[in-house]
Each structure stands twice: as structure tokens, then as C-alpha cells.
């Protein structure tokens, strides 16, 4: 009962309510309440995520498993940043209420939290993703082999887009007059044709397919046909 029936009812009720809320203006405010709870729970989910991280790393450190020193570093960074943020250490007072410490802002580099954001979090996040540039290039060298028609289409398109997205496109084909009948040989013309017609068509079909999938999955969940989420524990 507590473990199966009630969760199924909660799921069905919240899902159905939002669908009803959409169709009737009288129930819009119910939908707002439900989504409001959802948004607050999303904030709690961040706390849960942090808790999970703590649990995993604490276990690693206490068991002295391989790489425990790094886990300790993660814990220390987490603890320090959390303290900086929750206590708003070094926060700039709010000009309208300088007497209330927690009304201050912790976002400039003057406060500890803002400093860590600016000089640790921001550069690390940016560099992590920048690293992928190297792997994309390496993959282009190793994996992009023109073995059959499909691969050639993929390669050819990538070529056109890569050229047309830079000044190289204009340099190579920019001399072909835009008004002439050969304008379709211009790389910028080809790029627009590919992205706005072919790629859009391909993505449109994918989007329709995904939408059908989402609609079906959502219905299965709300109607209680799909109960896989119950067995995760």
C-alpha cells in the first residue's frame, strides 16, 4: 500500500492534474501549485545530489580506497565552497539593508564564494568542455572514413559546413555572383540549403519521433502501465 499504491496514485494525480490544468482555465491555478512544488523539489534535488557526493566520497576516504586523497580534496572543496556560500562569507552588504548580513550578495570576487566562482569554478568548467575540441579533431582523423555512400554523404556535408562556416567559404566561392544561375555552387548557398532544408527536415522527423515517444511514455506512466520506477529501490 504505502510502497506501491500511493506512489502510483501520486504520479497519476500530479500528471493528470497538469493535463487537465492545460485544458481548462479554471484549473490553471492548480497546475501552478503543482509545478511550484515541483520547482521547490528541484532545489531539494540539488541538496540530495550534494548529499550523494558526500556519501560516495566519505566512504572512499574512510575505506582508504584507491584515489582516496582526491576524494578528500573533493570533500574539502565542497565543504569550503558550501561554507562560503551558506554563510555568505565576505558578502557585499545590500545597500538598502546593510544591517542584514544574509541580504548581501556573494557574487563579486570580493566575497569568498564569488572568488571561487570566478577563478576556480568558471575556468575549470570552461576548460573541461574546451578539451573536447582536441578529441573532436582526433575523431575526425580516425573515424571519418569514406567507406560507403552513407559515410561519403556525412563527410561531404561536414566538409561543406566546415568551409562555409568560416571565411574560407567566401574566399573559395564568393566570386560566383549571387544572382547568377550558378549561385547554388556558392558554399554559403549550400550551407543554407543544407541546414534550412535537409538538416531541418531530418531533425523535424527526429523531433516528431521523440515527441511520439515522450507522449507514449508519459501516458504509460500516468496510466500506471509503466511501474519501473517503483523497483529502483
Amino acid at each position, binding site marked *: 500500500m504505502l510502497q506501491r499504491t500511493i506512489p502510483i496514485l501520486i504520479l497519476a494525480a500530479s500528471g493528470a492534474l497538469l493535463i487537465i490544468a492545460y485544458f481548462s482555465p479554471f484549473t*490553471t*491555478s492548480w*497546475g*501552478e501549485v503543482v*509545478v*511550484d512544488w*515541483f*520547482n*521547490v523539489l*528541484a*532545489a531539494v*534535488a*540539488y541538496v540530495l545530489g550534494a548529499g550523494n557526493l558526500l556519501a560516495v566520497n566519505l566512504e572512499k576516504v574512510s575505506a582508504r580506497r584507491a584515489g582516496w586523497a582526491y576524494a578528500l580534496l573533493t570533500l574539502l572543496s565542497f565543504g569550503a565552497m558550501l561554507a562560503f556560500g551558506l554563510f555568505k562569507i565576505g558578502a557585499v552588504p*545590500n545597500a*538598502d539593508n546593510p544591517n542584514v548580513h544574509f*541580504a548581501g*550578495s556573494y*557574487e563579486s570576487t570580493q566575497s569568498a564564494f*564569488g572568488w571561487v*566562482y570566478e577563478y576556480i*569554478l*568558471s*575556468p575549470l*568548467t*570552461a576548460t*573541461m*568542455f*574546451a578539451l573536447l*575540441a*582536441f578529441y*573532436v*579533431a*582526433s575523431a*575526425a*582523423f*580516425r*573515424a*571519418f*572514413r*569514406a567507406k560507403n555512400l552513407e559515410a561519403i554523404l556525412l*563527410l561531404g556535408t*561536414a*566538409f561543406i559546413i*566546415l*568551409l562555409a*562556416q*568560416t*571565411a*574560407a567559404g*567566401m574566399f573559395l566561392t564568393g566570386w560566383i555572383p549571387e544572382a547568377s544561375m550558378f549561385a547554388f555552387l556558392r558554399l*554559403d548557398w549550400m*550551407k*543554407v540549403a543544407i*541546414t*534550412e532544408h535537409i*538538416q*531541418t527536415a531530418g*531533425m*523535424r522527423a527526429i*523531433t516528431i519521433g521523440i515527441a511520439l515517444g515522450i507522449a507514449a511514455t508519459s501516458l504509460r506512466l500516468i496510466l500506471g502501465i509503466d511501474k519501473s520506477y517503483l523497483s529502483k529501490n
Partner: protein
Amino acid sequence: MNNQTMQTFGGVRGFLARMGSIDRRWIFLAVALSIGVPILLQLRPPEVPGPMARATFEAIEAIPSGSRVLLSFDYDPASEGELQPMANALVHHCASRGHKLVFMALWPLGKQLADTTIKDVLLEFHPGYVYGTDYAQLGFKTGNEGVIKIMTTAIPQQYPSDAAGTPLASLPLVASIKRLEDFKLIGTISAGYPGAKEWVQYADGANPDAFTLVAGSTGVQVSQLLPYYPKQIEGLLVAVKGAAEYEMLVTSKYPVDHDQSRFEEGRRRMGPQLVAHLLVIALIVLGNISMIAGRGLKGGAR
């Protein structure tokens, strides 16, 4: 590839075949050089604005001067390189048209990027903008698409106060706003989920004609957004190329008298882009040459 096969592969063909199994760190080095050298040489190739950047520019020109505009910063520093130039140009463009700007963020780090943009662009180039009457910062809220969903009907419920804790009711600009329809234009600068797609699905889906939606997107995410252009998303800026083109359109109509480099970030990054793209093309060609060369050889490259 072992030493014996290496010895069997003589001549140019053997060299080409062996090239396929080169240590990838040489490729990494080539990438680093292809990006680092153009930056140091300040290579700045010319750009020509394309149709999508023009559509975005026109969308912002089309709404009456002084309109209320909502700008959502749905990205983090990981995409700053691509999206910050768009954000800068977008804010400058809106402010030059006299639009009233309301900032918000669906990504936690987006709020701070919006703050930076307010400081570096809005207040730097449009010092007349007054907080509360000309612009406001609502900040970040958790809930992803849930935030947009509530905002379609009840903004004050989602945002009882602005980011600094001032009630919306005491800020003239936002005191009367109740729902997204109260904005003439919504701009999202988006790096993924939640972002432009969710704005289309939850905001535009509910009121397709109530406001104009424009989006600045990363190159990675843009494929997902193409089906929505130009019906659901009226203007779409694609990656740094879109940013560079839009910067050109904005600064040619609304030039600034100092610190022009703020609106040249996108164009500046097209230099390394050019060289790196040529490198990737060369790598694809070399990879294929190597494959073809190795085909006839015993145990050749894959």
C-alpha cells in the same frame, strides 16, 4: 602496428598507411597550434551576415522602441566562448532600441553571467539605464521547464522578488507583469537543457503569437532548434559564426564610442575558427588517404 609490418611498408604508400596510427598527441598539438597562433597573430577574417542572423536582428528592430524584453541566460561558463558575444550584442542592441530589459536564468551559473553582462555592456554603454525602471534582474530559480511553465501564467508566484530580494511590486518595470505575454520579446541564450527548446515548448507553445522568441544557441545544440525556425523561433543565432554576424549587424547600426573590442569577441574568435576548420578538413582527408593507402597492404591500417 608492430615493427615487422612497419618495415614491410616501404615508400610513400607505406608512410601514408602508417600515418593512420600516429600518436594522437601530435594531432592535439596541431589543434593547439591552429588555435593559439591565429589568436596571437590576431587573425580576423571578414564575415558576411547570413539570413538567420539577419532574422534575429530584424526581430528586435521590429518591436516598438521601449518594449519590455525578457532575456534568459540559460548557459554557464562552459559555453561562454560561444554565447557571451551573443549576449553582449543582444543586450547592446535591445538597449540601443530603448527596450526595457528583464534578466533571468534557468542555469544556476547563468545568473552570474547575466550580472557580468549588465555591468560590462548595459551599464558601460548605456549608463542611463536605471535599475527597477529600465532593467531588472530576477535571477535563477530551480525547476527547469517548471519555471517557464509557471511564468506563462503567474510570474509573481515564481519570482516573488528580484535577485536582490526586492519585491517585484516595488520595481516599476515589473510591478505590473503577470505572465510571459506581458513581454514583447523573449530572448534565450541557450547551451542545452533547459534552454531554447524548453522556451519553445512551454512558453511559445502556450501563446504562439503573444511574443517574439529569439534564441542564441551553441553549435552543438542548434540541430535540435532548426525545426522551430522560423515559425516558433523567429531569430536564431548559430554558434560563434552567428554571434560574429550579429555583432556586425548591431555595431554597424549602433556603433559604440569606446571599447569596441567588447563587440568584436565573436569576430575575434573566427580567426582560430578558420584555421582549425581547415585543420579538421585536412585531418579527414589525411585519414582517408591513409585508409586508401593501407588497403592493399598486408595488415594495413583499419
